[in-house]
Every structure is written in structure tokens, then in C-alpha cells.
């Protein structure tokens, strides 16, 4: 285990940086949502949230320093959830007689 090798205290500066970044990104996300980007708003919002998620997962949850087993498990979960979401969108988009939503 990585914690055994490294001194856990060494991680603290990284935590503090992540803390700052997470707060900053949250503010950016709020600010961006007021920009008139149309459909682009959704993209930006999810992108920023994704960046936050990677920071939290990778550093606070020590995912980056985990061993293969955990990586494989999570890869499986992420693959399934992406399959779920993407196929759902496709299923919605491709319906016979689909009514285009009124904008």
C-alpha cells in the first residue's frame, strides 16, 4: 500500500491545493451558468463538474495511488454507467414518430 511507503503527511499540501481548486471550480461553474451559451451551458457545466470529480476522486479518495484491482473495479462501473447514459440518450433520440420538444 502506498500509505505504508509514503508519509501520509506528505499528502497534506496536495489536499490543500485540491481544496482551493474545488472551491474555485464551483465558483467558475456558477458564473458560467449565467453566460448566454445556449446549449453550450450544459457542456461547460458538466465539464467543470467532471474536473472537480476527477480531483476529488483521484486525490482525496487516493484513487490515483490505488492498485490495479480498484482501478479495474471502477473502470467497470464507469463503463457501465457511461453505457447506461449514452444508450439512454440514443434511445430517446431515435424513436419512431418522435415529437420534437417545443423550445
Amino acid at each position: 500500500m502506498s500509505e505504508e511507503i509514503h508519509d501520509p503527511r506528505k499528502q497534506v499540501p496536495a489536499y490543500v491545493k485540491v481544496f482551493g481548486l474545488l472551491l474555485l471550480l464551483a465558483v467558475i461553474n456558477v458564473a458560467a451558468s449565467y453566460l448566454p451559451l445556449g446549449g453550450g451551458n450544459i457542456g461547460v457545466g458538466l465539464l467543470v463538474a467532471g474536473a472537480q470529480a476527477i480531483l476529488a476522486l483521484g486525490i482525496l479518495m487516493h484513487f490515483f495511488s490505488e492498485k490495479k484491482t480498484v482501478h479495474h473495479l471502477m473502470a467497470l462501473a464507469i463503463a457501465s454507467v457511461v453505457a447506461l447514459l449514452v444508450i439512454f440518450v440514443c434511445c430517446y433520440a431515435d424513436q419512431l414518430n418522435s415529437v420534437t420538444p417545443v423550445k
Partner: protein
Amino acid sequence: MKEETGVPQEMNEQGVATGGPHGGGSGTAAHGAGHHEHQIELSWWRHYVFSTDHKVIGIQYMITSLLVALFGFGLMVVMRWQLSFPGKPVPVIGPLLTAVFGANLAPGGVMTPNLYNSFGAIHGTMMIFMAIVPALFAGFGNFVVPLQLGAPDMAFPRLNMASFWSFFVGVVIMLGSFLVPGGAAKSGWTSYPPLADIADTGMGFEPILNGQTLWLIGMAFNITGSLLGSINIIATIIQLRAPGLQWMRLPVFVWSELVTAFLLLLAFPPLESAAIMQLMDRLFGTSFFSPDGLIIGGRHWPASGGGSALLWQHLFWFLGHPEVYVQILPTMGIVGEVFANNTRKPLWSYKIFVYSLLSIGFLSMVVWAHHMYMTGMGQSITTFFQIFTTVISMPSVLLGTVLLLSLWGGSIRLPTPMLFALAWLPMFGIGGLTGLPLGWTPSDMVLHDTYYVIGHFHYMMAPASIMGLFAGLYYWFPKATGRMMNDFWGKVHFWMTIIFFNGVFFPMLIQGFNGVHRRWYDGGAGWQMAQPVLWLNQVMSVSAWILALGQIPFIINFFWSIWRGKKVTSDNPWQATTLEWATPTPPGHGNFLHPVAVYRGPYEYSAPGAARDFLPQWEQEESRVAEPKLSSV
């Protein structure tokens, strides 16, 4: 995830003695717990009821789910009466129906449409979620997997107990729902909204204590239990393999349990979310699944609308399809074990078998919408699902082929478990082949929602899965009880079962081709078009009743053998190679008397040059003793 060297290092650290478990010395504990003393007195309650021992929990699962299966079968037997003799009072148990369900649902012993629907919904739900899956996945999984891994118990024994009890509460709620005003859920095992959203609401129904709401709550408990159980199984397989038990030395049953557990883990939660949403719809009047402008009984349904009934179908089948594989995968593992053991040769290709299991696992996550071709899906997305549905049948065929070829040149023994395992193969074949036409839209258009679909999936889940279940029961019974089940009565049971299973389900395929709809209560006008095949109803019903009689030899044999059966003379009565047979009979708490280690693959039967025709995984060098003695616990 693999360690490629023969025996990993921690084995040397513990200084495992060479020579396997019969090498001598009195009972030291299982590996990892060198000097620990296991003969701890537990109260009766902790021992048999709130036990954390994986074997006890496995048996609890098995007994509960066999009872549920019997109950579910009973429901079906009564439904078959209605189908053969519509509107006539049910003989023998008619008065009982009236007494239990009241004159509203069963006046004068006649099944009403509502009662028929309740029976159908609960038959499907209980058989799938509370009988077959818990028996195969949790029952055998709990009892056998840690033994086959050489582990002292599951990774999280207390969690294990929690999952059993969660499941148990689910069963009780589901059974109890028959007793609330209006009776149990009526919307099928699939609970399609908007019907399921509005069912059992309004006049004469309680807000929470009504059939459909209790269905959802019962399912939530059941799902929770399944999730905890699958976490436990996976963690156990990853963490508690005995020294030397590399991934490609795992018995195929362990592989099948691993894939099954992942399917449950990843596919069940979306259904849980859907169940929560349906609960919200029913309790708080939300419109997750109620479309705009829903009119019921001539009145606007008082909800905002904007929901989508298709959303439920997608979420349901996202679980639903993996769930059907959850019911067949463990039996593939069981059949693989029984085949190797009784052909006395290695499986024809262990690797192909394992990779097929894995690819079925992956693919079964992306085929779910083949249940929804008729819901107005567009062409590109149907093409996607048709392709993957066709592709998933390939590993299934490979698996069957591996098993078939494994028979080639074997010196086949035919004890009862092998008979069941052999019969599994053609039943699985019929089930799979009848699935293909359903996987393609042009033919599914004709066959969807007919008895053909019912025939297809019952061939998978009844003849195939249940054959596998029986094979496993007869095979592992001696390990659990120390006694053999009677072979003669086992064979009687086998022939009764296989013949009448086909008597029930084959005619369904024929009726389906003739357009008989799967959910009709007495058919009415629809049956007029199916006159030429209606006589098959009687054939099926009579087969079902004889099938019920055919289970009596099994039930008697089962209980008789627990106390009176022939005692086994060895810890390894089938002369098998996998680790569960290295334990004492029956295994005590902690399982192994000595630390075990694994030296070879799982199915080294009839190795050239060996004195015996089997080389157990746990023996470093071939033992000189022809048949190891029975060790005392």
C-alpha cells in the same frame, strides 16, 4: 490481478506443511489464523438463525428459496386450472382460495381476473427474484464458493447475515401483500407503468398497505440483500483465494458466481432507482412515469404529466436482461463442475468456458432493449440491439459446445446429478434457439407478447435453471449433510421432471405461433382465433399437475436423506478435485482443518501416469492412499 508464480509468497511465510490436508496433526485452524481455537460454543440462535457462518447462511437461503419456489409453483398450478377450465371453481383448494382471498377475489372458489393477475405477477416476481436467484446465486454461492476458494468464511460474515435477512424480509412482505385489501400486485413481474402507477389506488385501497406499493417495498429489500450479497461474493473471490489459487485455477462455478455477482452489482441499482421513482409516483403524486394527458376511467389523472412510461421499461430491462443471465450463469458453473467430475476428464476447454462466461457478462449489459422492440424504437437503435442480441448468443453457443465436447471420450458415470446436468444441455439449447427469433424485429413483431415468449424463457429458467439447481443439490448434498441422497428416487424424480417440464413448456411455443397472448385470463374473443391449439391448454395443465406430483419423491428423498441417507465413507465421495472436498464432512465453522494450498488447475482428471483418475487441487504430490478417510470435525 494475477499472480503468475506457482504459489505466492504468503504461503511460505505461514510455513504451510507440504502434503495436503490429510498430512497429520489435530485440527489447527484455517489459513491465516494459525493458533486460533474454533470450537466456540454458540447459542442455538446464533448457530442456526442469526448465524454468520457462510454454510449456515447458504442453507438458509436454499431452504427459504426452495419453499418460495414451491409456493410460486403452487400459484402457477392454480392458474393452469383457470386456463384449462375457465370460470369453473378450482377443485380441492377452491374453498381455501375463498377463505384466504375473500369472496371478492375468489367467489365460490372461482378465480377472478384480479386474482389471476395477482397470481401471475407474484409467480413471476417470486420465482425470479426470490427463488431461482437466491437459490442459485446466494444459496450455492454462499455454501460452495468459500469452500472452493479454501477460505475460512466469506470476507464479511456479518454483512452476509444482513443480506440474508434483508432478502427474508422482502419475501415476507411479498407474501404478506396477498392479505391486504385488494390483494397482491397485479401488474406482472415487470410492473409496467402507467398501469402500475395507478393500480391498487383509490377506493378500497390503503395508501401504503396495498399490493403494488408493497411489491415495490418488498423488491427494495430484496434488491438490498442482493447487492450486499454480491459485494460479499466478489470481495471474497478477490481477497480470500487460498495460496496458489490463481485466477485461471478457479473452478468454473466460482467464475460463474463472479460474473453473476458483477451483473447483480451493476444492473440492480438502476432498477432500485426506478422502484424509488415509482414509489414517488404512487405516494407523492409525481409524474416520473405518467405521460401528459393521462385519462383514466374518463377522467384526467391528477398529475402534472410530462413523464415517460418508456423510462420505466428502459430502467427495468437494464436490470431485467442481466437478471435473466443471473439465473442461468450459476447453473452453467454447476453443470461444468458436474460434467468434469462425472466424465472423469478435464473440461474440453476451460479457457473458452471462462472467456465465454466473461463475454456473456459484458454483452448482457447492452442488449436490454430487445424486450422493447414493439415500443416504437427507431431503426438505428433497434439495429444496435439486434446485433448485440445476436452476438451474445455466440458465447452461449460456445459454452454449450464446450460442455458437449467434454462428453467426448469420457468414461461417463451417471449418478443423479449427472443426469440433471446432461438434461440441462438440450434444455438450454432449446431456450437459446427459441430466443434468436425474438432477437430480430421481423419475427419478434409476430411473436412478441405471445405464449412463444413464455415458452422461450421458461425453457431457460425452468427446465434449464432448475435442472442445474437440482444437479447442484444432488451433487453438494453429501458435503452439507454427510449423507448421500437416494439414487433410485433421484432418478425417478429426474424422469418425472424432465418429461413433464417439456409437457408444460413445449406446447407454449406452438400456441405462441398461433397468436395466443401471454396475459389473457380466459381469452374471450381472442381465443376464438386460436381454437385449433386450445386443447393444448389441457395438455399443459395436466403436465403441470403431474410435474407437481413428480416433486414429491424429491421432497421425501431430501428430508429422508438428511437423517437416514447412506453415510458417506469419505470426505470426497465423488472423487472430485476441487477444494470443497478437502474439508471435513460436514465442514465445521472455519471450514478447513489445516491450511490449504493449491498446486494445480481445477479439473485434473485421468492425468496420464497417475495412479488414480483424479488429482485434487490441494495435493502437492499424488497421495498414495486410494481413498482418504473421513476426517472428524
